[in-house]
């Protein structure tokens, strides 16, 4: 065992944190948050900095970074205080859209998409959830039927991160309705936004992560070429699902780990500065205990997160470990951001200190990528053997 980062890794994390603080944080504004506006300048900066394609091999425009280093960079952005909308869009692009193409795509698919996903030129999205089915894949209604050299897709998807701006979408659709289990009858496609019959629905207003645009997506006799199929027919969902269980639940949660650190730092600084009853808040034990709990939440989440990242790098199974990580970290992040508000008192409840934004943003963690309830069910079935 070795629980340390190398000096290079620490320097890398510090550099990404500085990049986030200097090049991304200033692009956020209350107006953008209020208006659900995507931060184009941040996206360009991330593309130029090279953070949008970290894990892919260099020949596809990536940096060949390990899962640990990919998480380290994502954590660094959270530590810098980058808004979670920006890191969510990054995760949907780089991990949800890019990783399945990298791991399951043909040479042509990888050459076509990955360099542009990495550069930020072609924003990526991932379409799994439907109005009538989320974690319950058996309820999936979107259908793809082979017609000569094309696939014809019909159905709709919802809550699609990057939907309004994405160039290409990873789309799951039923190709063998009688398959048992149902997940072995679902295939995955790469659908370009200019495909005939593809339509982006309305932009959805939401509680947090508001700079990350979310929309509905409609497929009305949407035609894509045969080579848009990603991975083997009927097995696409099973394989993508496996990737997503590990990579998504880890890399997309890494900014939340950084967010816990950022919230803790913000609260500590405020407690040193703010005085009540003649002494700094830092002297009050009731508030000290909140800081201690934040630190314990950080250290616990740290171990659970980097364990999964390390196992991903070793090609070991991570399903249970990733579910454990996501359950703990997502709930810890909400608790921490709530305590940060409490420490800030009235200022915390007002918008000017941004801590209320962190709280709104953190709530996505227990819902997206499989709710906490889905994670608990998964953990229990795996260890209980029922």
């Amino acid at each position, binding site marked *: 065992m070795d629980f340390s980062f190398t000096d290079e890794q620490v320097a890398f994390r510090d550099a990404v944190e500085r990049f986030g603080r200097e090049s991304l944080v200033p692009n956020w504004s209350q107006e953008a948050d209020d208006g659900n506006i995507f931060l184009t300048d941040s996206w360009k900066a991330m593309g130029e900095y090279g953070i949008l394609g970290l894990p892919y091999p260099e020949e596809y425009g990536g940096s060949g970074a390990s899962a640990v280093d990919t998480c380290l960079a994502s954590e660094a952005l959270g530590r810098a205080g980058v808004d979670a909308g920006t890191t969510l869009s990054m995760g949907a692009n780089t991990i949800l859209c890019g990783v399945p193409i990298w791991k399951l795509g043909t040479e042509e698919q990888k050459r076509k998409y990955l360099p542009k996903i990495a550069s930020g030129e072609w924003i990526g999205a991932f379409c799994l959830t439907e109005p009538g089915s989320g974690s319950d894949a058996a309820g999936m209604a979107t259908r793809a039927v082979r017609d000569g050299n094309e696939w014809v897709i019909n159905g709709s998807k919802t809550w699609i991160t990057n939907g309004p701006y994405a160039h290409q979408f990873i789309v799951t659709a039923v190709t063998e309705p009688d398959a048992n289990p149902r997940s072995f009858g679902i295939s995955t496609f790469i659908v370009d936004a200019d495909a005939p019959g593809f339509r982006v629905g309305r932009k959805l207003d939401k509680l947090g992560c508001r700079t990350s645009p979310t929309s509905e997506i409609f497929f009305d006799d949407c035609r894509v070429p045969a080579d848009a199929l990603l991975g083997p027919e009927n097995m696409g969902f099973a394989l993508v699902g496996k990737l997503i269980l590990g990579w998504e639940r880890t890399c997309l949660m890494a900014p939340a780990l950084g967010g816990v650190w950022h919230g803790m730092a913000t609260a500590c600084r405020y407690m040193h500065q703010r005085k009540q009853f003649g002494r700094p808040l830092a002297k009050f034990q009731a508030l000290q205990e909140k800081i201690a709990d934040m630190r314990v939440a950080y250290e616990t989440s740290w*171990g659970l997160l980097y364990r999964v990242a390390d196992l991903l790098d070793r090609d070991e199974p991570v399903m249970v470990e990733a579910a454990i990580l996501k359950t703990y970290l997502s709930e810890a992040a909400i608790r921490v951001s709530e305590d940060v508000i409490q420490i800030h008192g009235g200022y915390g409840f007002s918008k000017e200190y941004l801590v209320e934004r962190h709280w709104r943003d953190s709530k996505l963690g227990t819902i997206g990528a499989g709710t906490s309830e889905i994670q608990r069910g998964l*953990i229990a079935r795996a260890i209980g053997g029922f």
Partner: protein
Amino acid sequence: MDFTLNDEQQAFSSAFGRFIDEEIVPRGEAVDRNKVFPRQGYEALARMGYLGLGMPEKYGGTPVDPITHYIAQDELARGCASTFLSAGASCGLFGVPVRLFASEEMQSEILPGLIAGELVGAWALTEPHCGSDAAAMTTRARKTDKGWVLNGAKMFITNGNCADWIVVAAKTDPEAGYGGVSSFLVHKDTPGFHAGTSLEKMGCRGSPTSALHFDDCEIPGEWLLGAEGTGFLQAMQTLEYGRVGMAAFGTGIAQAALEESIKYAKERKAFGKPIIKFQPVHFKIADMRVLIDGARILGMRASWMHGQGTCPQSLFSAAKLFATEAAVTCTDKAVQIHGGYGYMAEYRVERLYRDARLGPIGEGSSEIQRRLIAQETLAMFAG
């Protein structure tokens, strides 16, 4: 970065786990009921080499890496919290300061017997009126021509009335605060030393706890441990081991609670199906596993960093705090899953629930740990 166990650690883990299942788990119920020092388990642990883990080879010990040591502690706590506690007080809280601070002569007199399971040790810091506030200690050691004379009382001492040797902290310079504390070795047969009867307690009943009294207790000069005035520093160093140990204590108990809960919930039927099929039951099981993994990684990390000499105080404290509170939460859920049976002494979870409650109190309460973590964290962001 590497979160995996190597082959030797894995092999040790399964072999030691089997030993615990065969030799320690079956005695747990009687150990708790009899409320006497778990002699048979202690001797079995000596035969397995547990009492000599991390001790010098020349005294019969086995140098091991900190992860292996952590695994052994975690497994023993899973098997029997009382046995863990008594063995830990003996070879850890007592054995560690002897190994680190005692003279060569005293080490060769004590360590071989301790490692072989023939001697039992104890560590006496807490007093009736002071626990975490060690500077308020009133036990006094005065220098004489022949050595030292001890006067005062200690409280809640694990193995207090069954130990052959005890490390005792006492004030040698009452004006000097922390720097006025020294520590001493005291043999149980020394005139003026008296151990009280076992205190009745909620859990860990197989591990005897007692008060100690020192009435003009005269000891030779060579029983001073390390240099005069370094007793508090020694205690802090000893507690680093103790906090890793308490992290293992919590994690192991929680693991036992999880295993009992899964077993019971799969057997017990209600409304026509095993109760594990009901979400409110199996979500509790998932919650237990989440806490256990968090606790175990923290404990292993603190142990590993301790070995590297890089572990901050806040991480020792975080590991101890999280794991011991996790054990309280997990054993509570385990009792709940067992329903009426969980409330009965006949089922193991009733004992686990009582045993776990020591964790957030012993070796620095949760409140003390949080204070320490907060101070270190606040200082990181003082600029």
